[in-house]
Structure formats: structure tokens, C-alpha cells
């Protein structure tokens, strides 16, 4: 809201310079975001919090300044309206919930004209446009008192009557901005006997607008329900100075005074002949609100020692009624313009605000009173370890949007029906209309983004959520660790080798080792989104924990990605519980080990798991380690076969193995391998 510094001076005496006043108001909670010089005046841009509708006018701000500067505000002049002629207008409120009070005053014999220079300047200081002096005065009074007013050309009202009612389906109105608008039952209107003439609290109608030819004016000053106005304004897509104020709640007790003030000013400026008595329909204001403020409670909450007398004077300076109630308490009566004050804590805030947050001490030593010892959850500690392991392996952490477009290809590949995808009811656009069912889409976005910028090597991970429906209509989320790699292995100037799936697999193995997870395996299996030739399920203790694979080319094409991308997704709930972060020393081996190499040619289909498993099976605990150390295909190896070399480390926990023992185990191993896999030993 815009506030004129010069205009404020008409309501209260103060000597503060513009910047000092701005600071003072800001530190009292009325934030001044900027000051602009304009025609010898200073215009503040204020941000007013939604709990303070009483600050949406100059008089309200001046009232607040009483508490800040100790001076008194000047009353505004308003002659009570009141000749017997013209007759007071006929008002009927059909929707008493939507309109609790409606004051109407008739003004006869007006001669609308352009506004005086000083009035026009005030209207413009608030960023509004001048129209004619009748309309401008209604706006002036709104800016002054916070009560929106509307002036109708009475002679254009059919039947000369005002009816406040809900619009009927199919009704229309052309508003003063020239737009024709469709109305419905959710919208409150002001109507004459035939048709709506204004959208209540939001905007008047073009047909009954006051112009230079208007002679009789019906002045409206009403209280409309905030929620109703807010919903209607949103629906119609209109935000006016009036709706802004009604949405935030105007002072129902101030309707009559504002109407009388406007009527007397219009009379004077537009040379009206006579003014009717007000037709004041509906409630006159809220019942008296009385709140007890216990001083010990206030000081206990604030950590202060403010005396009751200081408290009382602060509350009085804000225009509240204050009486002592015993030694330690005050009874405070709240006027209708401060309906935000409902309970004790609201008063405590008022006291602390004016007392000054700066004057409240800062204590720290007491913080240890409330719970001891910092704590991180086990999952958080594991997550930090995961980040350490993965950044240590050269991966950068990415954060991608959980809201994205619906990826039909992914849906299809994962055989998800449309109803299984979590969709946002009010999305900003189709680019962010659904919650991701998998993280791989975001990973590929990042790869494509970087490739498009000529950054070919992407190695990333993300720890985030995926979202799905768990049994029918209950949305659910689960933690996921996603990894993706493409491009070159290292950034060395001399060594150049492309990343392959074993790099990604190795990183996952290293991660598991860092987390103390041992019982894992990779089960080769064609999976959706992955190339059938290179995809596997990651299992921990026999249970599925995630997937790993080379992304299928068909899918990469959709992202415009050329080259290979390797991706893994692991379910956090299936990984973290297996982590063992405590290290325990288990002694060094006490007896020496000895190793034997076995070189064999086997069919391609015989896996490492088959061979190593067989060796372990044959040797039992005596095979301390079985690992492949070379793989060869090509000349001297028949087509469809591979030559693979294993090293077996033999060791017993309780004695030194003899050469004969080892040789005999080695022979046994060879025999079984030949038998089981038709292997050729070299």
C-alpha cells in the first residue's frame, strides 16, 4: 500500500523525518519497503500483514503513531447526515451472512465536477486514478478510514431500491472497467428490483456509475463477509482497492461514520442541495470484547519485567480501554477497529511490539534447559556417509525437481496405469503436473542438459523421494538414492577411457562396503527402461533393494542423448537398515595363506557367480578369497566361449595348510569345474 507522508500530517503532529518515521513504523511491524519522492511529498511503499486491516488507511496508521510518538490524533470532521428530505433510501439485505451491515445515504442535487487539486493529489498519492469529485471523495474516505464506499447514480436504479442478495445463475453485469462478467450463486451482488448493479465489495456496475450528469447519488457504506468477497474476487479475477480491504475485514463499527464523512464532503464539493438521514440496516457492530491480561504471564512469555503501569499506558496509547484488575492484571476492552485482538496473547504481542523488541533482552545460557545433547537420527548419519562415499568416488550431488511432466514412456515401461501416478490438482503447467514415480527421469534431464552445453562427462547422484499410491487413494513417498554416469571415466589429460557399467557397479559395491553391507548380489535380469543386455536387480540379503543398468537407447532418444548412460536406483528403506557403521576389529589372520590360479575356458553363459560359487562350495571356509583377475575372448578361444582366470587364496583359521592339502583342493576344484560347466582347464 502507498502512504503519503504529508497526508499523515493532517491527522497527527509529529516531527520525525521521512526516513526516521519509516524506520519507526518498520520496527513496530508496519514494514516500509521503500520511499519515493513525489511532488514535494514522500510516498511510502508499505507491506501490511494480513492481521492488521486497520492499517489499510491513513487514519489507522496515524492512530498507531500515537503509541510511537505519544501525541494525539485529530478527529475527522463529519456533520451527521440528516434532513427529512430527500427520503432515506430503501435497503433490503437478503443475505445477512454475506452482508452484516449496510448504510445508505441519499444525496440530492449534486453537480459532479473534476476534483480540486489537493483532492486529486491525494487520490494519486495512493496510486489511484481521479474520476470526478463524487467518486474521488468515496475513494478519499476509503483511503482515510479504510471503509470502502460506493456511489450509485440513483436515477439509474430500477425501482429506486437496493437489494443485497446472491447473484442468480445466468445473471451478468458490465463492471465500471467495461468488462462483461458472468455471475453465479457464490457471488454477492447489490441489485435494484430488476438486475445486479454492483458486485458487492468488489466493483460497481457501468450502468449506475456516477458521471457528470448525475444529480442524485446513493452512497453505500457496508460490511461484507471477508471469505465471501475473497472467493468471489478470486473467481472473477478482480482485485480492487475495495475487495482488498473487505477480504481483510473492515471495521463494521465504522460504516456509519465513513458514510457521513463522505456525504458531508460530497455536499461541500459537489454543491449538493440536501442529504437524507442514513438508512442503517443490519448489525451496528460487534459486541464489546473484553480480555484479561495477566502481567506475570506476559513477562514470563517475553522474558521481561515490564511493570503493569507501563503495560497499561502502551495499550491505552493504541486506543484500547484499560482498567486494573487486582494488582497483577488488566482488563482491556477492544474497540471494533481492532478485531484482530481476541485473546491474551494478542495483547502480549501489542505490549512487546510497542515496548520494542530491541528492549527485550537476549538470553542464551538457558537453552540447555530444554533437552540435552544434539542428536542425528541413524538414517541421517547413514545419509551423510552415503554422501561422503559418493562424492569421494567422484560423483556430484544433484537436486532435481520432484514435480515434473508426466512421462508416458516411463509409465508404460513400468506398467503403471494413469491412476497410479500422483498428479497435482492445480499445477502451474504440464511441465510440473506430476510427482515423479522414479528418479531416473531427473537424472536423464541432467545428463541431457549438460550434453547440450558441451559438458560430456556427467557423474551424479541424488537422494530424494519417489511418489506413488499405496493401496487405492492414499498417496505415499519413499526415499531413493539414484546414481547416473556417462562420458569419460577420469578427467585426466593422458588417460582416456569411457565409463562403463562396471564403474557404476563398482561405486555401488564400494558404497556397500563403506556402509558395512555384505550380503548383497546383483541378479542379472532384463528390466524396464534398461537395455536387456545390461541390467540387474540389486539384492541385499536376498531382498530386492534396487536396480542397475544401461539405459535403453529407445528411452535415451526421447531425451536426445547420444552415447551410453548408466543408472542405478536404490530404495533407501531397503539399504539403510542393513548398514553397520560401527567398526569392530576381528583380529589378524594367524596362519599364512597360499594361492593357486586356475585358467579355464567356459561357455559365455557360465557366470562368475557360477564359477566362484562352485569354488567356494568345494573348498568351504578354506577358500579365504576367490576372485577373477583376467578375462579374454578372441583368438585361441572358441566362439561363444571365454577364457577366465581365477585366483583362489587358501587359508585355514586354525592351522597352516600343507602343500598337499592345497594341491588336492585345487585338483578337486578343477575336476568339479570341468564336470559341472564342461570347462576346459588350461
Amino acid at each position, binding site marked *: 500500500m502507498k502512504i503519503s507522508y504529508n497526508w499523515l500530517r493532517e491527522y497527527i503532529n509529529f516531527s520525525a523525518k521521512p526516513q526516521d518515521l519509516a524506520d519507526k513504523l518498520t520496527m513496530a511491524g508496519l514494514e516500509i519497503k521503500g520511499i519515493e519522492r513525489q511532488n514535494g511529498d514522500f510516498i511510502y511503499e508499505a507491506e501490511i500483514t494480513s492481521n492488521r486491516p486497520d492499517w489499510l488507511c491513513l487514519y489507522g496508521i496515524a492512530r498507531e503513531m500515537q503509541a510511537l510518538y505519544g501525541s494525539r490524533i485529530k478527529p475527522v470532521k463529519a456533520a451527521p447526515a440528516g434532513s427529512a428530505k430527500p427520503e432515506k433510501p430503501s435497503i433490503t439485505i437478503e443475505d445477512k451472512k454475506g452482508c452484516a451491515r449496510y448504510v445508505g445515504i441519499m444525496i440530492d442535487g449534486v453537480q459532479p465536477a473534476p476534483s480540486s487539486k489537493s483532492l486529486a493529489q491525494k487520490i494519486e498519492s495512493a496510486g489511484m486514478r481521479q474520476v470526478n469529485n463524487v467518486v474521488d471523495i468515496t475513494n478519499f474516505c476509503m483511503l482515510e478510514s479504510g471503509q470502502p464506499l460506493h456511489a450509485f447514480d440513483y436515477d439509474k436504479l430500477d425501482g429506486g431500491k437496493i437489494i443485497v442478495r446472491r447473484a442468480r445463475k445466468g445473471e451478468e453485469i458490465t463492471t465500471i472497467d467495461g468488462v462483461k462478467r458472468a455471475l453465479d450463486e457464490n457471488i454477492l451482488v447489490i441489485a435494484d428490483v430488476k438486475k445486479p448493479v454492483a458486485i458487492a465489495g468488489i466493483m460497481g456496475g457501468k450502468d449506475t456509475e456516477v458521471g457528470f450528469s448525475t444529480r442524485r447519488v446513493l452512497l453505500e457504506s457496508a460490511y461484507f463477509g471477508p471469505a465471501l468477497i475473497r472467493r468471489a474476487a478470486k473467481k472473477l479475477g478482480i482485485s480492487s482497492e475495495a475487495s482488498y480491504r473487505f477480504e481483510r475485514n473492515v471495521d463494521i463499527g465504522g460504516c456509519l461514520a465513513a458514510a457521513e464523512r463522505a456525504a458531508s464532503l460530497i455536499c461541500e464539493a459537489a454543491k449538493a442541495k440536501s442529504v437524507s438521514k442514513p438508512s442503517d440496516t443490519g448489525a451496528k457492530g460487534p459486541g464489546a470484547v473484553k480480555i484479561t491480561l495477566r502481567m506475570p504471564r506476559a513477562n514470563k512469555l517475553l522474558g521481561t519485567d515490564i511493570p503493569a503501569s507501563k503495560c497499561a499506558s502502551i495499550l491505552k496509547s493504541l486506543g484500547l480501554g484499560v482498567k486494573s484488575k487486582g494488582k497483577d492484571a488488566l482488563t482491556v476492552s477492544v474497540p471494533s477497529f481492532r478485531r484482530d485482538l481476541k485473546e491474551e496473547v494478542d495483547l502480549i504481542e501489542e505490549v512487546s511490539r510497542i515496548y520494542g523488541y530491541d528492549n527485550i533482552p537476549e538470553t542464551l545460557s538457558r537453552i540447555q534447559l530444554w533437552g540435552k545433547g544434539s542428536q542425528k537420527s541413524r538414517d541421517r548419519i547413514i545419509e551423510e556417509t552415503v554422501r561422503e562415499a559418493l562424492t569421494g568416488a567422484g560423483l556430484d550431488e544433484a537436486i532435481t525437481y520432484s514435480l515434473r511432466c508426466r512421462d508416458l514412456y516411463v509409465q508404460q515401461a513400468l506398467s503403471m496405469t494413469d491412476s497410479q501416478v500422483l498428479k*497435482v490438482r492445480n499445477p502451474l503447467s504440464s511441465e510440473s503436473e506430476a510427482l515423479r514415480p522414479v528418479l531416473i527421469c531427473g537424472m536423464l534431464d541432467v545428463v541431457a542438459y549438460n550434453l547440450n552445453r558441451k559438458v560430456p562427462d556427467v557423474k551424479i547422484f541424488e537422494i530424494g523421494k519417489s511418489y506413488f499410491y499405496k493401496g487405492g487413494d492414499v498417496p505415499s513417498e519413499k526415499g531413493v538414492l539414484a546414481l547416473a554416469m556417462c562420458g569419460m571415466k577420469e578427467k585426466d589429460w593422458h588417460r582416456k577411457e569411457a565409463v562403463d557399467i562396471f564403474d557404476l557397479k563398482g561405486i555401488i559395491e564400494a558404497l556397500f562396503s563403506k556402509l558395512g553391507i555384505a550380503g548383497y548380489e546383483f541378479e542379472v535380469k532384463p528390466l524396464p527402461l534398461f537395455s536387456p543386455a545390461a541390467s540387474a536387480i540389486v539384492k541385499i540379503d536376498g531382498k530386492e533393494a534396487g536396480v542397475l543398468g544401461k539405459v535403453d537407447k529407445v528411452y535415451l532418444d526421447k531425451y536426445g542423448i547420444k552415447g551410453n548412460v548408466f543408472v542405478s536406483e536404490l530404495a533407501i528403506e531397503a539399504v539403510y537398515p542393513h548398514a553397520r557403521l560401527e567398526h569392530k576389529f576381528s583380529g589378524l589372520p594367524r596362519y599364512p595363506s597360499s594361492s593357486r590360479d586356475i585358467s579355464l575356458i567356459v561357455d559365455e553363459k557360465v557366470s562368475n557367480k557360477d564359477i566362484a560359487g562352485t569354488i567356494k562350495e568345494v573348498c568351504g571356509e578354506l577358500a579365504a578369497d576367490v576372485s577373477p583377475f583376467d578375462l579374454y575372448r578372441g583368438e585361441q578361444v572358441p566362439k561363444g566361449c571365454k577364457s577366465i582366470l581365477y585366483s583362489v587364496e587358501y587359508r585355514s583359521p586354525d592351522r597352516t595348510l600343507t602343500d598337499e592339502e592345497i594341491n588336492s583342493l585345487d585338483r578337486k576344484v578343477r575336476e568339479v569345474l570341468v564336470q559341472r560347466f564342461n570347462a576346459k582347464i588350461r
Partner: protein
Amino acid sequence: MLDKINALEAEAKSEIKAAGDSKALDDLRIKYLGRKGLVTELLGGIASLPPEEKPRLGKELNALKTRLDEALRSRQAELSRSPVIPLVLPGDFADLTLPGFRPPAGSKHPLTKTIDDICSIFLGMGFKIVEGPEIETEFYNFEALNIALDHPSRDAFDTFYIKNQYLLRSHTSPVQVRFMETEKPPFKIIVPGRVYRPDAVDASHSFMFHQVEGLVVGDGVTFADLKGALSVFLKGYFGADVKVRFRPHYFPFTEPSAEVDVSCFICGGKGCSVCGRKGWLEILGCGMVHPNVFKAVKYNPEKVTGFAFGMGVERIAMLKYGINDMRLFFENDMRFLEQFK
């Protein structure tokens, strides 16, 4: 002709085997398989052969092409597997002005870094880190936090709705409610997390962002304690020299409420483009927990008091690292991420 083919194959294969680097392999590929290569030349010779021999030899030559191509590839693979040319020459000479081989090093995302830095100061004060779901209900996101259905303050928490009463949380405050439902005071918690609001993406807005919130509840927690704890945090995070000011503000779930500014650490409070010439930077919102919030979780507001605070992680990270566009956080350009090693 067949002899010629066999001889060529033998020669080519031995040369391929001897090739020491990929440049040599490229040269061999041109020599044999190139447009004017030896194999191509032989193919050209087919034209002059008797017609009955043409198909057989054509087939033979094409097979040779494939075999040589395979041999070239497998040698290339071998080369890339075997150690490349040693950089240290005989006589132990090494040109140490050449760059070294750096071990791989990735980086945490700057937002994670910011969250961790914020949390670590609070951990030092004995706070506990707590997290909660992103998909929430209206009850946890609004009602229990004293945000009435029709209150205009709901506008400020504009929200993505999913289905039925479910929504994407618009702040991390619901976690406070969930925590209080199951735990008894006294406690001090800090809550980092992702949140969502329907803001179109631009340099300073995003429909997804991060917050860190805190909550302290116990017997006799005061506004003075709130000021003390947050001053320690802000001076710890932004530097001991920054000035801190608390301004009255409005939040439905706290009362009294405040916004907290620190003196601009870029211009030292003189006013610059970052602080909008004001000399102050708005960093967080806070206040004393509203009695209605305690009532919603069945705490007795006459017995316990507490303070809560919340801050936007992106804003703090942008100030701290001098980042001027929020989109950078979510584009994940490797050249951006790598700057936070």
C-alpha cells in the same frame, strides 16, 4: 587371388598387433580399410575376374573387412586397457610440469551444504534433527498450525493439492506438529526439508524449494531465549560482526512473531544492490508458539511455552555463495556443481 587375401590378412594382423597407440591404429585402418586402402583396392580388382569367381571372392573380401575391423577394435580395447605410454622415461626423467592425475572428487550440492552448515550450529546448541513427509494433509499443513480455512494468510501459503485432503507441504512446519503429537517437552528440534508452492520459476522463485525450521518447547521458554538462540545462530553463520534486528511481523502459528534481519554483510550495512539499499537482509521468521498450536497437539499452553523459527535455504545459499539465479540450483550444470567441492 585367395593367396593374396590370406597374405594381406596375415600382414595386417601382425601390424595391428604391433600397433602401440590409437594413432597407429587409425593409420592402419586407413591403410587397409580406407577409401584408397589395400582391401578396397583388392575389391576393385574383382571386376576383372571371371564372372563365376566374383561372388565367392566378394564374400571372402567382405569377411576379411569384418575380421580386420574386429582386430582393430580389439587391439584398441587392449590398448586402452594396458597402461599407456609411461610418462616417466628411462633414466627416471619425468616432465613434472605436466599436470598430475587427480583422484576423483565430487561435491555435495550447495543446498545440502547450506542445510548441513545451518544444522551444525544448532546441533552445537543441543538440537535434534527431525524430518517428515512431503505429502501432507490439510490438518498438519494448516489447521493444527492455527491457519483457518478462510483466513487470507492461506494465500501466502499457496499450495499444490493432490487428491482428497492431501497436498504437498508448503512449509516444514507440519513436522513440528507431528513431532509434538508423539513426544513430550522439553525438546529442541531442527527440521530441514523440501517444500512446494505454486510459484512460476524465475531467477528468484521456484515451485520447489527448501526450508529449515526449528522448535524449542519447555517450561519457561521466553522471547528473550528466542532472541538469544537466533543471534548465536546468525552470528555463527554470517560472521560475528553482523548486527541482528528483530521486527514485529505476523504469522498465524506464532505470537508474538518477528522477522529477523542481519546487517548486509556485503556492504556492511551501507546499502547495496543485494540488500536493496536498505543495509539489512531479511533472513528468517520466528515467534513464540501460538497457544492454539499447543492446544491442537494437546499440550497445555499454561504449562509450556516455546519458540519456533524458519528460513528459506535457497535464499541463504544465494546470499552466502553470491548466486544470483535460483534456477541454477535445480539445473545441475556440472560446471556449477563442481564449484562447491
